[in-house]
């Protein structure tokens, strides 16, 4: 059993405006099956989607013995779920790190379409924020640079690349920037 004094996150959800899941991670056995997860997501969505809080503001609710901090950006809903005894402000910091990292990675285009197109980045970001329920990192810049492997140079220096390799990588980079 993990030391109970360590702050923990029970789950991390990214849903669309209709409550359908885009990317989710669960860290407790409580929601180990898909139906249990789906029921939970439905109730989270039902409890939070009609909130009157300004969009883009971190909001909070408590139900069924879990604390849910959430934030709506565009047509996306970001959630961090913790146990009811968890320090709400810690969960809120995790959520802020999550949202801001996604925003950095998607260059501000935080909407369902771009998220789906760059789902790899979103999944990696989630992996860099929480490790098995423990908070790994909450600073958005750090998260984003770890996701994009900044600093991990390709081991073949540019000079040694063959022409076709260089061409391919250039093409790819152009294609990527066009997609964004």
């Amino acid at each position, binding site marked *: 059993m993990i030391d109970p004094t360590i702050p923990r996150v029970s789950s991390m959800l990214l849903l669309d405006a209709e409550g359908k899941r885009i990317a989710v991670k669960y860290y407790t056995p409580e929601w180990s099956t898909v139906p249990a997860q789906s029921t939970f997501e439905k109730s989270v969505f039902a409890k939070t989607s009609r909130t009157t809080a300004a969009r883009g503001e971190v909001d909070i609710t408590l139900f069924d013995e879990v604390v849910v901090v959430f934030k709506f950006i565009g047509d996306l809903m970001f959630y961090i779920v913790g146990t009811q005894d968890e320090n709400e402000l*810690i969960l809120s910091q995790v959520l802020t790190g999550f949202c801001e990292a996604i925003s950095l990675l998607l260059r501000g285009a935080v909407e369902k379409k771009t998220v789906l197109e760059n789902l790899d980045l979103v999944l990696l970001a989630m992996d860099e924020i929480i490790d098995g329920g423990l908070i790994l990192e909450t600073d958005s810049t750090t998260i984003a640079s770890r996701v994009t492997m900044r600093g991990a140079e390709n081991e073949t220096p540019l000079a040694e690349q063959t022409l076709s390799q260089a061409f391919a990588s250039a093409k790819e980079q152009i294609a990527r920037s066009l997609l964004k």
Partner: protein
Amino acid sequence: MASTAQDPSAPLLRGDKKEEDRDDETEFSPFFGIEKGLVLQEARIFNSPHIDARRCQQVITKLLYLLCQGETFSKKEASEVFFSVTKLFQNKDSNLRRMVYLVIKDVCPSADEVIIITSSLMKDMNSKTDLYRANAIRVLCSILDSQLLGQIERYLKQGIVDKSPVVSSAVLVSAVHLLEGNSEIVKRWTNEIQEAQHSTHSMVQFHAVALLHALRANDRLAVSKLVSDLIKSSVRSPLAQCLLVRYVAQVIAESTAAPTGETRPFYDFLESCLRHKAEMVIFEAARAICNMRNVTLRELLPAVTVLQLFLSSSKPVLRFAAVRNINKVAQTNPGAVVNCNLDMEALISDSNRSIATLAITTLLKTSTEGSVERLLKQMTSFMSDIPDEFKIVVVEAIRTLCLKFPQKYRALMNFLSNVLREDGGFDFKKAIVDSVLILIREIPEAKEPGLAHLCEFIEDCEFTYLSTQILHLLGLEGPKTKEPAKYIRYIYNRIILENATVRAAAVSSLAKYGALVPELRPRISILLQRALHDNDDEVRDRATLYLRELGGLNGSTPSQTDYIDLNWTLPNKNLETCLRQYLENGATQPFDLAVVPAAAAEKPRVDLATKGKGASTMANGPTPSSTKQEPAAADYTSQLRAIPQFAMYGELFKSCAAQQLTEEETEYSILCIKHIFDAHVVFQFDCTNTVQEQVLQDVNVIIDLAEAEEFEEEVLVPLARMAYGDVGQCWAAFSKPAGALTTGRFVNTLRSRVKEIDPSTGEEEEEGYEDDYQLEDLELAAADYIKAEAVSNFRNAWEAAEAESEMTDDYGLGVKDSLQDAVEAVIAILGLRACEGSDAVPPNARSHTVLLSGLLVGGVQVLVRMMFGIDMTRNVAMKLVVRSDCMETSEAIHYIIQNA
């Protein structure tokens, strides 16, 4: 969709897709129409000699998308994916590599396959690139076994002090996960972890502190030392500081309470954290102070002050956290948070309804008699726009308030009846009706207005359950009011307008007016007569019965109004058993209600009231379980009553738990239940024959009293016939000195006439043979004569008891897992009831006092006070003090412990 929700293996995807088709929502998605089979086929490109990194990355993303949508891969599919993914380790593209790390964690390979990637991962662990090192460590630690851990321990140890924060965090977090099962190995890294604790990177510091504590969590001394070190060395990371606050709170909770007036150790530290620059630390500290045991007003004040500041923050999370804490403090220390009331009132209109509800309930807890009306006015608008679940919380708070300020019942009752008229679901309405019922019961003046509100409510109530409940109450309470006649219209309207269940309830309710108020009787009879033509059987039957009981239309005096179930105290269960027996015996004579045992007709009203109070004080602790045992006891009483020989033994004192006298899966199964009377002991043997080919007759349990000399056999009641699968009883009764705790050992033999059954014809043989069957011995211990019985106020009872009867002794209980175990064991031996919740040992307590009470056979009260202590080696010692009516009884209690 419904079908997907029920099938645990079905992914969410399928349902969604259909919906999308139906909605014709052609929103662009790169995953539109994605199919597992195709993706798995695509995954073959991982094996191709010319790897297109970008393409591979897309396929991995698709695989992860499928997993994320709840799709599952079969073992074969997963291992295929896993094997092909491992090929990508050769690739130089760092982004692709990062995806590979991710997918390996999700496509969790089985243990025998892990070996394929360990060498690649170990190579990456030594890579020059920090991110490769970090990721490889995380992946490896999530899949390794302890043997492999031994191999890579060296690298992990180095990793902790790596210059790169991402590497050290990766090792530290993985180590927290690894602790389970590998704590010995992780312990060897303590020096490195301590170094990391002083890291300049805040996350590394946080992870190092968390790990250090996790390593020492079971050692109180080490934790105290860690806390002192950390306080001295000044922690930079806010998260680590939060951890430190938690540890300090733990240390405070475990330390023995300081004498009043003296500051607690470390309180100053918590208070200084209230001035920390990070809000999360401030809040953690405030929360820790509020949760301290026996916290004083003076200690609370600084914490409440910062929480009050949070109340007016612009961030909902801060407001929520603060109001939730203040709400908790208000339960125990309402005086400490009164200053926040103004800020709280502002929160009633908060856009976050959770915050508003918490604010309201807090205000209701702290409000004074004078402020109730103002508060209610503010709440009326609030109630209309919150969901039902919040409304229920508010209604419960109102009920508590009303019980606190009975003089304010009028305003509060009006509020309840107003919200009762609003729209709402069953649970909400039920909460209100329950509250009104409790208020009517508790506050006599509130009865008439309450009944009037309820009458109005049933005029337009869509819930049958609530209508019948209210009609029943009207029948009970209405006739006792000054003007019973005014309720009749409401009740009769139900007979005209409602469904059959409600109509039947209304008929019963009306009949009670007829029975209790002679002036109304003729009018009631007329009304009841109209129900005679009802199209529902039950309604007609009830009307006919009551009309007859009321003396029909001619106005003659009724014979037995008792039967209009006014004094119906017989427990339904008892009645049911008696009726069953009656039918089994052939139903030759008219059934006599007098044979139904009326015992266990516990006063449900008292029960309801305590339940109401329990809910209103928000006490979640279990209510005394005395009611739970009643049905079983009642059952035995009815069985005992069926045997005339036991009639003169008097009131049953106690029935012990059933005890098996045979081993499992033998020919017979015999259960024994010991019934204790003042001067007698009755053994009930529940016998079951488990052999199909035989039937037993004249079954008796023969008891040898050689080791129970003080007992004298009185009667043996044999069981006439014991057929396959039936449970029957035979009995044995003994007399003993009245009121004494006579102990002894009983040697039992089952004696019967066995008759074989011919399996082909099913006929029994004529003669049969005598058979003796050895049963296990029974023991009657002193604890059997003790009945757990709570006292309402232990201290008063203790002081009232004879001080001269007090007897003290010390006992060593040996090594126990925890104090709680020791406490439970001793309570079980004594069979006494713990008072004031003292049977729950606070976590990590080193000493504990338990208060017990109970009755001894003969009705002697026994009070016990036990002091427990546990030392570092888990040795438990106990001091036992007993008070009762005389020295002998106290000695007897000690004797039980000595012999246990």
